[in-house]
C-alpha cells in the first residue's frame, strides 16, 4: 500500500509560518501556546466566536459528524477566509487521540474540508502521542512536553481556584482580573524559567495565597459539576457558555482538570498491555510517566491542603478506585471510564449536582455517559445528574430549561439539608458564618 499523503510541516515553514490552534480551555491553552513559542513556533490561539463558525463548519463537514469537529474545523476555515492571515504562510494544529472513537479522524476530516474550501495546501500538524504522523518541522521533544505538562498543572490549579472564588467575590470581576494577571505572568515564566517542579510549586503557592486574599461572602451556593466529552465540557463555544449560565443561576461550578484526561490516556495504553498483551515493551515507560504524574498531582494536592483555603482536586488513583465497581478500565474510547469516574469523583467531593455534556450522537457517551447514569444513581441516590446534548441545531432554551430543572432539584436538596443541619445545636450567631463549613462536612 502506498503511504497516505499529507502536506508536511517542514523545518523551513517553522521559521516563517503562523500556526493556528483551536481554543478549548482559554487559560490552559494560552500558557501552552507560550511554551510552543519558546521553542520557536509562531503559534496563535483562535479566539473567534459567533454563528459564522458553525455555519462554516456545517458547510464543509458532514453534518452528522460530532459537533466539536464541526466547530473546530469551522473555526479554522473561518480564520483562513477572514483575510487576517497569509494562507500560504499559515499552518493548523490539532490534537489526535488515535483511539477507536471517530475523533481520531478529525485531522482527516479537517484535511478533506480544507481541500473542499480550496486550502488543500495548508499543512495540518497532528499533536498525538501515538506516533500517527511525522512532520520534520514539528517535534514534541521531552523538555517541551515537560513544560506543556506544567502549563496544564498551572491551568488546572487556576481553573480550580477561580471557580471557587468567583461566585463568592464581593468586588465583581476581581477574581477574573487576578486570574488574567496570573495567566500572563505564568505564561511568561514558562518561557523564562527552566523546568523545575520546585518553581512550579512555588508559583502555585503564590497563586493560592493571592486568591485567598480576595474578599468573599460566605453564603451557601449550590455546587454544580461539569463533566462530559472533552471539547463541549470545556469550550464555551461548544457548550453555549455553560459556566457563565451556571454562575448567573447562582451556582458554584466545579470542573475536573485537564491533567486527569492525560492520565486517563496513559491508563488506556496500560490496559492494552494488561488486558490484551499488546505492546509489552512500552510498559516501563508508561508506568514511569504515569507514576511521575501521579506523584506530581499528589504534591499539588498536598500544597492545596496545606494552604487550606480551597478544596483540592481528587487524585486520579482514588478516582480510578471509585469507578471499579461500575465499569472496567478497558473502556477507553472517547472519555471512556473517566467520564463516569469524574461523576463519582465529584459526588465524592460533595458535588452531587452534575451536568453531563455531550455532542449529540456521541457514540462513547451512549455507554459512558447516559449508559452509566442509572447504576451510578442507584448506588448514590443523592446524585442529581442532567445530560445535555450539544449540537448546531439544539436550542438553548431547551438546554437551559433542563439545566434549570436540575438546579431546582439541587436547591431543594440543599434546603432540606440546611433544615436538617439547623436542627443541630449551634450558636445562633456563628451559625450563619459556619453554615458553609457545616454543609461541606455534612455533604462529605
Amino acid at each position, binding site marked *: 500500500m*502506498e*503511504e*497516505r499523503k499529507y502536506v508536511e510541516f517542514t523545518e523551513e515553514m517553522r521559521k516563517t509560518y503562523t500556526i493556528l490552534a483551536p481554543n478549548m480551555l482559554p487559560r490552559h491553552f494560552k500558557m501552552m501556546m507560550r511554551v510552543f513559542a519558546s521553542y520557536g513556533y509562531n503559534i496563535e490561539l483562535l479566539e473567534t466566536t459567533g454563528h459564522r463558525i458553525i455555519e462554516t463548519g*456545517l458547510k464543509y463537514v*458532514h*453534518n*452528522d*459528524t*460530532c459537533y466539536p469537529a464541526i466547530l473546530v474545523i469551522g473555526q479554522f476555515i473561518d480564520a483562513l477566509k477572514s483575510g487576517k492571515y497569509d494562507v500560504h504562510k499559515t499552518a493548523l494544529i490539532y490534537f489526535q487521540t488515535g*483511539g*477507536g472513537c*471517530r475523533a*481520531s479522524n478529525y*485531522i*482527516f476530516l479537517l*484535511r*478533506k474540508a480544507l481541500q473542499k*474550501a480550496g486550502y488543500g495546501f495548508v499543512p495540518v500538524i497532528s499533536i498525538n502521542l501515538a506516533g500517527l504522523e511525522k512532520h520534520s518541522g514539528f517535534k514534541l521533544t521531552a523538555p517541551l512536553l515537560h513544560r506543556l505538562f506544567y502549563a496544564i498543572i498551572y491551568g488546572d490549579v487556576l481553573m480550580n481556584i477561580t471557580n471557587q472564588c468567583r461566585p463568592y467575590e464581593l468586588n465583581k470581576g476581581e477574581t477574573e482580573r487576578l486570574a488574567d494577571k496570573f495567566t500572563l505572568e505564568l505564561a511568561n515564566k514558562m518561557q523564562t524559567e527552566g523546568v523545575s517542579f520546585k518553581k512550579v510549586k512555588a508559583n502555585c503557592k503564590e497563586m493560592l495565597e493571592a486568591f485567598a486574599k480576595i474578599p468573599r461572602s460566605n453564603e451557601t451556593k449550590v455546587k454544580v459539576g461539569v463533566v462530559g466529552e472533552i471539547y463541549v465540557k470545556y469550550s464555551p463555544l461548544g457548550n453555549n457558555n455553560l459556566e457563565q449560565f451556571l454562575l448567573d443561576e447562582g451556582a458554584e461550578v466545579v470542573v475536573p482538570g485537564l491533567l486527569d484526561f492525560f492520565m486517563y490516556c496513559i491508563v488506556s495504553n496500560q490496559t492494552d498491555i494488561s*488486558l*490484551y*498483551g499488546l505492546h509489552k515493551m512500552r510498559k516501563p515507560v508508561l508506568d514511569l510517566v504515569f507514576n511521575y504524574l501521579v506523584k506530581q498531582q499528589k504534591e499539588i494536592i498536598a500544597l492545596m491542603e496545606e494552604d487550606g483555603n480551597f478544596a483540592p482536586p481528587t487524585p486520579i488513583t482514588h478516582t480510578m478506585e471509585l469507578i471499579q465497581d*461500575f465499569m*472496567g478500565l*478497558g*473502556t*477507553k*474510547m472517547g472519555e471512556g471510564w473517566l467520564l463516569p469516574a469524574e461523576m463519582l469523583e465529584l459526588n465524592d467531593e460533595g458535588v452531587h449536582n452534575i451536568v453531563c455534556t455531550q455532542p*449529540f*450522537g456521541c*457514540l*462513547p*457517551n*451512549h*455507554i*459512558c*455517559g*447516559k*449508559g*452509566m*447514569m*442509572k447504576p451510578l444513581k442507584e448506588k448514590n*441516590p443523592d446524585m442529581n445528574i442532567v*445530560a445535555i*446534548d450539544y*449540537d*448546531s*441545531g*439544539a*436550542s438553548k*432554551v*431547551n438546554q*437551559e*430549561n*433542563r439545566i*434549570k*430543572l436540575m*438546579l*431546582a*432539584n439541587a436547591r*431543594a436538596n440543599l434546603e432540606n439539608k440546611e433544615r436538617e443541619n439547623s436542627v443541630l445545636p449551634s450558636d445562633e450567631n456563628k451559625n450563619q458564618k459556619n453554615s458553609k463549613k457545616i454543609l461541606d462536612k455534612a455533604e462529605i
Partner: protein
Amino acid sequence: MGNESTVAEYSLGIDIGSTTAKIVLRKGEEVLFERYERHFSQVREKTAELLRLISGITGDSEIAAAISGSAGLGLAEAADIPFIQEVFATGEVVKLKEPDTSCVIELGGEDAKIIFLDGGLDERMNGSCAGGTGAFIDQMATLLNITVDELDTLSLDAGRLYPIASRCGVFAKTDIQPLLNQGARKEDVAASIYQAVVNQTIAGLAQGKKIEGKVLFLGGPLYYCKGLGLRFKKTLNLDDEHAIFPEYGRYAVALGASYFAEKQQDTYTIDSLITAVENAGSVSSGKGRLKPLFANAYEYRKFVDRHAKSAVKNADIAEYKGKAYLGIDCGSTTTKLCLLTENNEILYSYYASNQGNPVEIVREQLTEIYKLLGDKIVIAGSAVTGYGEELIKHAFSVDYGIVETIAHYTAAKYFEPDVGFILDIGGQDIKCFKIRNGAIDSIMLNEACSSGCGSFLETFAKAMGYSIEDFAEKGLHGNSPVDLGSRCTVFMNSSVKQSQKDGASVEDISAGLSISVVKNALYKVIRASSADELGEKIVVQGGTFYNDAVLRAFEREIGHNVIRPSIAGLMGAYGAALYSKKCAKSNIIDSVSLKGFVHTSKSAVCQGCTNHCRLTVNSFGDGKKFISGNQCEKGLGKAVTEEPLPNLYEFKRNYLTSLSSKEGTRGTVGLPLALGMYELLPLWHGIFTKLGFNVKVSPMSTRRTYEKGQFSIPSDTACYPAKIMHGHIEALIEDGADAIFYPCLTYNMDEKMTDNHYNCPVVAYYSELLKGNVDELAKVKFLYPYLNINNKKELAKELYTYLAKFFDGITKAQVKKAVDFGLNEYDKYMQAVRDEGARALEFARKNNKRIMILAGRPYHIDAEIGHGIDKLANSLGFVVVSEDSVFRLAEPFTVKVLNQWTYHARLYRAARYAAEHSDTELVQLVSFGCGVDAITTDEVRSILESEGKYYTQIKIDEITNLGAVKIRLRSLIGALDERSGDNGRA
C-alpha cells in the same frame, strides 16, 4: 405550605407552555378561576388577556404570583415575576394532592415528562430529539385531515395496531403515510399513533426505570385524548385505581406555580401584574438574524417577472380533439393529475391533498375527466408515479408505473434540455438528482430525519393561524429573518419557540423557516459546499417551490438563478404523461367500468413464513386485488417458481442460525445474536461448545425483540442494532440461560489492511451498558471479559483466567483447545462466506444479472434490522452479495480518512471492487445514529464516484416501511437503464 411567608389574599399560577397558556387563581385551597387557551405565540398579549379575566375577582387585593412553563421563562424574566421550572411545579402539586403517587406522566405541547416519586425524586424530560407529544398528535391529526377530537374518537374503535416508529414525529409520519396510501383503516392508524406516543414516552423517558404503582397522568393531551390514556393503561398494565387522570390534569403546572408563589416575598395587585406583563419588552437578542429575502420592491418585481417565463401552455379541453395522455402522481400527501395534448399542452390538471385516500381521489378525477372528454378525445396513454403508484396502477389498469425520479427527469428535460440538476421539495420528501451526459448520475433522497419540508411549513402556518399562501407571502416581507439552523423539524420547533420568545414577527419567522428548508435541502441532503457543485442548469420543482419565499431563499443560498416551472407541483404527473406518449393503445379503465368501480381494504397477517408481514388487502369491484405490506413475493399468494437469486445475507443468516449445538454438561451459556456477535458467533459458539457448555443463541430479531427490551434502553439516540440487544438479553434470560456472554472487544479482527482494527465504541463496550441497565442480568452470570481475539495465546489465557472465576473445573488446556477450535470455526465461516460470494458473482455473470454489494455491518443481515432489503433487492433482479464476501477481491489501497475500524475497512475495499466492475453496484446500509458512518459514507461515495459509479445510501432504523427503499433502488435501476440506453425496464 403557605405559612407566614406572604400575606397575599390570592395566589396565582401562570403556566405558559409551547402552545397553550394556563392560569389558576386560588384563595386558600379553593380554586376560583382556571382557564386553558392556545396562545398562538402571542405570549405577552395572551397572558395579559387572561389576567384581565380575573380582575373582577381579585379587585385591588394582594396577589402572590409565579410563572412557569417552557415559553414562560422569558416573560418571567422580562416582567420580573418569580419563575418556577415546570417539572418542579408539577412535583409540588403531586406532593400535596396525591402523596401516594409513584410516578407522574405529563405530556404537554412539545414536552414530555416523567417524574418518579418512589425512592427519591427523579424527574426526566424529553431530550432534544423527541416528538411524542401534543404537537405530534396535532401534526398527525392534520395528516389524517381530521380534528384531534375526531382522532380520539376514531382511536376507540381500533381493531389492530400498526408498528409506527416512536422516536420522533418525522419518522412516524414516514410510517403512517404509506399506511394511509395503502388504505389502512383510520381507526387503526389513530390508535397506532397513540401507541407510538406511549412507546416514545416509555422508551425515551423511563430509561430503564419501571413505571409501576400509582401513576398520575397530567397535561392537556392526556386530559383531552381519552384514547391516549387508554393506550397508556393497556401498555403499562394499570387498572383504574392505579391510573389516575385528575380533573386538574391540564392545570397541574399552573397550580404548582400558585403554591410556589405563596412562598415568594413579593406580592402584586392585578393591575401591577398586567402592567408588568405588558411592559415586559421583548428582549430581542439581536443575534441570529439574517438578511431580508428582497432588498427592495424592484428586486422583487424582477424576480416575479423572471419566473413568469417558465410557463406551460394550456389548451381548452372543450375545443381539443384527438389523442390525450394522462399522468398521475400519487405522492405521499398530495395527488396530482395532468392530461396533455399531443403537443404537450395541458388540457386538465389537478393538485390537492389526497386526504389519506388516493384511490377515491383518482376515481373522482377520472370520472370528471371522462365527462369532459366526451367522444372527441381519447386517452391514448397513461402512466402513474409516486408512493401510491402500484395501488393506482392496479386499481385503474394504468399503462405504466414509473419510478418518481424518472418521471421528474422527463418533465424537467422538457423545460431545460440540458438540465444538470433537479431539486424537488414535496410535502414529505426532498429528492434531487444530478444529470450527467443525459442520464441520472446520482440520486439523493432525504433521510427520514430531515423530511417534513413542505408539510412542515404548512403545519407551522396553521399553528400560527395562517394559510400557507398567506404565510409564504408574509415571508417575502420579513425584514430580518430569524436564523433557525438546518436541523430536523423537531429542533426547529424549539428554535422557533426561542425566536418567538425574542419577539420575532411572523414575517421574520416565515422567512426564516423558508431559509431553513432550503439549507436543510442543500446541506443535509445534497451536502453541497458551493453552488458550483450543482452546475449551471438547475430546475426546482415540487409543491413547496410554489412558495416564493422558499424559491428566493434557494436562489440566494446558492448564489444564482434557477428555473421554476409554473407547474412546479405537477412535474411528476406532467413527466408521467410525457412518458406515456410512447404507448400505442391505452388499457386504462374505461368510463363504463369506472362507474361500477368499488374499493375496499382490509388487513391480514401473512402466513407465508415466520416474518408474518402485516398485509393490507385492497379489493376492487372486478375481483382484482392488490396486496401491500409484504416483504417478499410469498405474501402475494404467488408460487415461487424460479430458482431464487443468490443472496449472501440469506446465506449468512442460514449459516449462523443452523450452527449445531451439543448437549453440554456445564450449564447453558446464552449468546445474544446482536451487534458484534453476528460476526463472531462461530468463534464463541465453537469455544463454548468445545468447553462442554450447552450453547443457546438468541433467535433472529423481530419487532417484538425490540419491544421486549426497550424498557431498559438508557440512550434513545443510540443505533437500532444496539437498542435491539436489550431484547436479546431478555429473551435469553427468559429462555433459562445460566450465563450470558458478550465480551468487550476494543479491537476487532486484524485483517492487515488498515491503520488500525478497532470496533466502534458501541460494539466494543455495549456490555458495560447492559450490566448497568438491564436489571434482569443480576439473575444470571453475565460474562463480559475484555479479550484480544487476534492472539490465540492471549485469548486462551485471558478467557481461562476469566472463566475460572465463574466455573469450576475448567482447565487451561481445555480453554486452549477450545480457542483453537473456535478460531477454526470462525475461519471456516469466513471462508464459506467468501466461497458463496464467488459463486454468486459467477452466477450473476453467467446469467447476465446485476450484482449489488449490499454493504453494511455484519449485524445488518438481521431480518429486523435490515428490514428484508436484501430480499427486496433480489425481487428487483439483483444478485445480492455482502461486503465481507467480496472485499478481498479488490486490492488494499489507501483511503483519505484514518482507516481505523475493521468493519469499515471492508466497506472501502468493497466499494473499490464495485468501482472497478461495471456490472456491480454498491448500496450502503447505514444505521440511523451511527456516528462512525458520518465518516465512512463520504469516503465510500468518493471511491465510487471517482470511477463514475452511483452511490446509493439507505438509512435504516426502526422504520419498517420498504416503500422509500424500493423507490431508491428502482431509481438506481432506472438510472442504470437510462445510462445504458435501455429505456423501458423501469
